[in-house]
């Protein structure tokens, strides 16, 4: 073999020890991108897939046509929900470190996406989250205790002990079951939206995947089916720059944005500042309106940054600069909304600190309650009998037999 090679290997802009470098990110100024009517044909708004819709400028002032109709109360509630998500994450991260739960994944730095979209969509709209959308569960009112009990696989676990932490669902709140398999929820969302259209209902569907997951087949299937049937669905790509150790270039992000992935099928793409709650809200509302009007799918790329490790099993210091997040030009979504509210006079550092304290206490109270339902190491434990339920709608004879076998064995050993 000759050493000569033209195989292109994507290179991140910085590795451990290097200075962070986000010059590869193309940014628009806040307010710079025009807001077309939501029924504009896809072919006339291809720029939205390359530009970056931003509302909050560097001083936290809302700018331009995309400024959404949100009251101060709504904005304060959004801030509260983002902070709550962050406090929840921090508490659960700690629980994992303490050996109380087996695994955890934070959404640090990406909170604006779930909270804004949760606010922009209607309760009847169905959501198909990824594992980094805990904010959707929170904004849709899932109790923290329920979320914690899922992570604890305890007696109150909604999943009855069957899933690793963070694989939540909330049927009542129209939140689909999170899968451990990447991107599989994408065609589900499209199918759900197709059914909504078949039934003539107004509800739309929305799904989330990460940048890395766009390489999976289900991403392609979903886009194809959404385009063919003009399904009322919002397909979100949360581009947090990293999969596990590979940056978004390994998902094909080096040359075009992820928002552009559907253009070849006639699916409009919108690239939005994912750390700008106002922008995400506005873009989501736009896409939802488009879908409800019969305008079909929209692909939204949220440009953000994974502030923490991929999961509690990961150590990002092995593959990216430690301080990369600090250098991220779109900042921290919590700080940006806070700055906006402080600027507009409705919020202060003191109030913010007080809110943080209040939420910390709230989360700690929830945790205290959750562990009363059991942890991995102590307290009540789920009845092992449920292991054999729900494989089928009714427990078939062979599973009943296996259940009895196990119970007999357990009795014997007691």
């Amino acid at each position: 073999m000759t050493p000569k090679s033209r195989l292109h290997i994507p290179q991140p802009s910085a590795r451990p020890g290097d200075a962070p470098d986000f010059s590869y990110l193309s940014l628009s100024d806040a307010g710079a991108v025009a807001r077309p009517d939501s029924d504009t044909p896809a072919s006339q708004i291809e720029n939205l897939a390359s530009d970056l819709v931003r509302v909050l400028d560097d001083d936290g002032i809302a700018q331009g046509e995309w400024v959404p109709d949100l009251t101060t109360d709504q904005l304060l509630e959004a801030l509260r929900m983002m902070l709550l998500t962050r406090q929840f994450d921090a508490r659960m991260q700690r629980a994992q470190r303490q050996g109380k739960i087996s695994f955890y994944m934070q959404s640090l730095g990406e909170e604006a996406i779930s909270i804004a979209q949760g606010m922009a969509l209607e309760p009847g709209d169905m959501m198909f989250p990824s594992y980094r959308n805990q904010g959707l569960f929170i904004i849709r009112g899932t109790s923290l205790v329920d979320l914690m009990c899922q992570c604890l696989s305890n007696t109150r676990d909604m999943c009855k002990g069957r899933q690793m932490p963070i694989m939540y669902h909330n049927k009542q709140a129209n939140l689909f079951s999170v899968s451990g398999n990447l991107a599989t929820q994408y065609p589900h969302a499209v199918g759900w939206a197709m059914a909504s259209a078949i039934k003539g209902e107004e509800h739309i569907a929305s799904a989330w995947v990460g940048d890395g997951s766009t390489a999976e087949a289900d991403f392609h299937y979903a886009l194809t089916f959404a385009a063919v049937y003009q399904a009322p669905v919002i397909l979100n790509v949360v581009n947090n720059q990293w999969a596990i150790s590979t940056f978004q270039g390994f998902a094909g992000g080096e040359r075009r944005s992820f928002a552009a992935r559907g253009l070849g099928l006639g699916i409009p793409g919108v690239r939005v500042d994912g750390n700008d709650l106002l922008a995400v809200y506005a873009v989501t509302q736009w896409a939802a309106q488009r879908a409800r009007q019969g305008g079909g799918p929209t692909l939204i790329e949220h440009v953000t940054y994974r502030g923490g490790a991929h999961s509690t099993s990961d150590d990002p210091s092995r593959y990216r600069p430690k301080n990369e997040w600090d250098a991220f030009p779109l900042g921290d979504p919590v700080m940006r909304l806070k700055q906006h509210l402080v600027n507009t006079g409705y919020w202060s550092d003191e109030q913010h600190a007080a809110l943080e304290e209040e939420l910390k206490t709230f989360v700690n109270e929830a945790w205290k309650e959750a562990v009363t339902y059991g942890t991995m190491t102590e307290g009540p434990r789920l009845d092992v009998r449920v292991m054999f339920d729900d494989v089928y709608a009714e427990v078939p004879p062979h599973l009943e037999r296996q259940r009895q076998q196990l119970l007999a064995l357990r009795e014997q050993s007691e």
Partner: protein
Amino acid sequence: MSQMNMIQAVRSALDVMMHKDPTVIILGQDVGYFGGVFRCTDGLQEKYGEHRVIDAPIAEGGIIGSAIGIGVNGLRPVAEIQFADYIYPGLDQIISELARLRYRSGGEFFSPVTVRAPCGGGIRGGQTHSQSPEALFTHLSGVKTVMPSSPYDAKGLLISAIESDDPVIFFEPKRIYNGPFDGDPNKPAVPWSKHPGGEVPEDYYSIPLGKAEVVEEGDDLTIITYGTMVHVAQAAVHKAGISADVIDVRSLVPLDVETLKTSVEKTGRCLITHEASRFGGYGAELVATVQEECFWHLQAPIERVAGWETPYPHAFEWDYFPAQDRIIASIQKIMEAV
């Protein structure tokens, strides 16, 4: 009562269910305007409209994946995969999602998808239009797997599959779409109108999943099989001139262990046959189950007659197919054992 071939019976099941339950919809390649490459959905789009009988992109994973979402939203999708050989791009959605959705969500979400796929050889389809991949599904927890051997069963079982809140993989042995087949390709084709299994009620009826059928009764031997091989096995039994129980498993999962047990306890001898290749095939589970349940009654080793452990070859279709001669050879071996 009508005379129906298996295609008509499948179509009738779909028709009855679409009429009875407005949430039933069909999705698949060429199933709509055209009525399916095997004509199983012929006329249904005209009758029920384009929003209930839906032509799909050529994307098996997308068909299954979107069907799951459709099912979660309260409809009852029947997905057609054009050939069982092409179901593999949909396997991840079946294994990782469809089969485990109810379980993983603590029983709160489920999707009652039925996946229909023509399977099996004997139509000169070569290695890409002849496969019997049922063993890849029967190992999964959370899906049911069915294969009928007659129009009557096809309709009754398909109706149960569609009504089931569990996902069902429904394999249709295409070699017997038009008539029972005894394994001899040189004999003139026999139509279903010459077979009692071709008598099919036009209206609704169902056959429960999880029940095998003893299609022929005898004392000396138990043959356990399904699909096309039911007919081949019966012909072999007659030719061999022995008295055998021939059991059509029909529902591969859940398996009707009792019926197998009762028979093998009676006969003490057992032969298992299927078209799929032998190693790790569904027959292996049948052997394991029978030997576990009936060991003390067995008077001879359980024999398997199955496809060879090669892909299904175009030119050697009838050398590959587990035909009467191979079954008879095994019957003799079993009967000689003392």
